[in-house]
């Protein structure tokens, strides 16, 4: 017995250093987990190109240190890439339509622009794009003003042309300047498909400068292959911000050109609502791209999308826009209540109308979100 004790003593001395280290580790882990409990986890979910990364950028601009000049400059290759990709898509699209359509003559480029078109298409298919100089910008502008390209752009919903394409085309000369530094607006318009997961931590400082809650925001990719990665983020989420681009009702998916984007958003929303880990999670639905919706609804009726086929337009102009918006909102609400199990009924659900590119609007919306979530936390803690 004595022998055992002494052996134990011997081991104890040897291990005391290790024990101290282990205890230190334990203490630190405890501290961190305690600190993490006060951090609220927010997820930005949604289908591809629904505006998640734009909201993410807006939050960075509003509540973190913002973008300094170096970071703004780092977006120049992205913006140039957007320009080249847009003009290439439009050029190739016009060629295809010239072949397939019945009244093909309006999609045929004028002879003097054919060479420019082929050259730009070749540049657009390279891996590394050249820097956008004044000369190339002039050529792009000439091609953009060609009637065939404009006709193709009118049918851009059938191609996968990003909306930022139009914005950059309009600002081509400013972008091609040698000393160009992107503005915040340019950075918000710059389109890059997100892959994997990105996170930031921020705190929305209140008006009276009192420090608010600490939030951790996660941005994900929206295409189908990216969604298998979402599952790693689903534990312990305070709120899910689901972005749905309501102006996409007549467009097809980037990763599957046979599926309508709005139908995909509908199915995805349903799927997210039914996840068991979100029983107590608040849901904030951002009906995004309202600015594009306003313009589109007057030209393209909502009924082109299967989900909205029972829509009846009542009037024109602003009234029509509001009516259409209310219809879409009601559809999403119905979907929410259909997909919510009886034991999840008391989770928070709110719908917000957003335009992710509008900084003031996003700021206002987020303040509302913050207030709602804080109230919810107090409510759950039994203090309200």
């Amino acid at each position: 017995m004595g022998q055992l004790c002494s052996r134990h003593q011997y081991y104890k001395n040897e291990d005391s250093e290790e024990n101290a280290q282990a205890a230190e580790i334990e203490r630190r882990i405890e501290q961190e987990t305690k600190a993490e409990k006060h951090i609220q986890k927010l997820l930005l979910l949604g289908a591809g190109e629904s505006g998640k990364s734009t909201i993410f950028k807006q939050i960075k601009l509003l509540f973190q240190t913002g973008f300094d000049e170096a970071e703004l400059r780092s977006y120049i290759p992205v913006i140039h890439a957007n320009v080249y990709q847009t003009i290439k898509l439009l050029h190739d699209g016009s060629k295809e339509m010239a072949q397939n359509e019945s009244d093909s003559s309006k999609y045929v480029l004028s002879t003097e622009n054919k060479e420019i078109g082929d050259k730009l298409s070749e540049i657009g298919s390279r891996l590394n794009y050249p820097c956008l100089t004044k000369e190339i910008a002039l050529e792009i502008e000439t091609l953009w003003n060609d009637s065939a390209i404009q006709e193709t752009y009118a049918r851009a919903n059938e191609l996968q042309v990003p909306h930022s394409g139009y914005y950059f085309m309009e600002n081509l000369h400013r972008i091609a300047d040698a000393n160009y530094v992107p503005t915040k607006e340019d950075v918000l318009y710059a389109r890059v498909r997100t892959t994997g997961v990105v996170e930031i931590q921020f705190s929305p400082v209140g008006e009276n400068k009192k420090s608010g809650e600490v939030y951790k925001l996660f941005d994900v990719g929206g295409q189908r292959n990216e969604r298998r990665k979402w599952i790693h983020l689903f534990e312990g989420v305070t709120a899910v911000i689901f972005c749905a681009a309501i102006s996409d009702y007549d467009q097809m998916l980037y990763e599957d050109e046979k599926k309508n984007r709005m139908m995909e958003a509908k199915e995805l929303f349903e799927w997210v609502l039914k996840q068991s880990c979100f029983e107590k999670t608040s849901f904030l639905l951002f009906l995004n791209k309202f600015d594009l919706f306003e313009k589109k609804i007057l030209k393209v009726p909502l009924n082109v999308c299967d989900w909205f086929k029972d829509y009846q337009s009542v009037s024109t102009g602003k009234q029509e826009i509001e009516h259409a918006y209310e219809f879409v909102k009601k559809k999403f609400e119905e979907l929410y209540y259909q997909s919510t199990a009886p034991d999840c009924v008391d989770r928070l659900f709110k719908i917000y109308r957003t335009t992710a590119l509008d900084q003031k609007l996003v700021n206002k919306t987020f303040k509302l979100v913050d207030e709602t979530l804080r109230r919810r936390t107090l409510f759950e803690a039994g203090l309200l």
Partner: protein
Amino acid sequence: MRGGWRMCLRLRCPFCICPCSHFAFARATFPFLVYKVPRPQGSAFWIPMIQVFASFNLLVAIMMSVNLIKIRKRHWWQSCYLWAVWIGGPLGFGLLLSCRIVQAFQLYFIFVKKRLPPIRSFIFLPLILLPWIAGSVFVHVEKPLNYRCEVSAWWIIPAVSLHLFYVALLVGFMRAIQHVEFKFHELKDLWQGILFSTSSVGVWVAAYILNKIHENVEWIEIASRFVLLLMANIFIQVFFSMSSSQPLLSQMSLRRKQHPEIGSMGKALGISDSEIQSQWEQSIVIDSNEPLDKLLLNKKFRSSFMAFADSCLAGESVRFYSEVHELDKLPFDDSVRRIYIARHIIENYIVAGAAMEVNISHRNRQEILTTSNLAHPDLFKTAVKEVLQLMEMNLAKDYWSSVFYTKFKEESGTNMNGHDLELLTSWNASPRLSSVHAADDPFHKGKDIFQREIQLLDDISND
């Protein structure tokens, strides 16, 4: 002595006499249960499983139809038609041969026609089974079997010819793909299958004739039953293999000690990494100003970048790039190996719902899936371009300011230049994803998930 024979053949437990179907089942599920390999999608999983199912059916059908198990009462489910006709035919022998034919059909299209099979296997398999089902229905309606589950010679001949017709079909596919130099044991498996199915049909016919000629001689009966069961057991073992549908998994041995390298098809095909690490590649300066496609040629950089991408759940892009790079190392005329790798890449990275599906447009995906030449050198060119652009715009920026880059710099022994230091300290040097520890690579070899503790240990030891 006779009593002894009789006793051993009147075993009550059917499972004792089909050891081979157990072995086949174990062989099929071993990679998934023990090595935790993710379940493959589609036909690569179902066809081996259906083969196990069919083999079990065949054995039980033979046992029941030769009345091996003595059961007291006559139940409805002991009916001869159920066992000898339905379960032995379309769900047993017919199903086994049809699976093999489907696999041969796939091999023919992939290696000879160099394109993906036009008919999905879950449509093709029932189509092939139709003659068996039609035959069974016909027999069921006509009811020629007697109480001892035997049938007259007029009925045996069409039955045997149906069996032999399917074997002939398999032989036909074999001859079409004979000239291809397969790297795994596909041809060997198919030959074995043909050989054994012909011999088992032969044994069956011989047993039948013997029993007819020398009716009621007990030792012939017992011997023929024994030989039939033995043939069936061997037949199943021979028929069961995974090499056509899952060549990498078929390399895995059942002995746990031999831990296999299943991550790379390139390694399995013998493409060594060290082949082409040229002087030029080693001398590339790793600098954030270089374009990404040039930097990724350097092996150490590539693995550091891959680790970073894995940490923010975007690893599939780098892996896809890396595997296409391996494909490009092969000479243009080595079409067999090119096709193996192309098929492996398509199944793992391109097919919708694949384990490591990459983020590419619909058009690029369809171009690859409907290609008419799987060995074409430019098959994945546009997809790789798209993925590289994705990585450059998305991941590269965050990489330069991440801990993975600092570690890489330390390990390669060079000092950071001023520009890179600036990058590190300029804006948000926080990790792209801090708290989620999940590898995107389903074959991750024991990634250490207690990173937080290790970091703390480092902190403490540095204090």
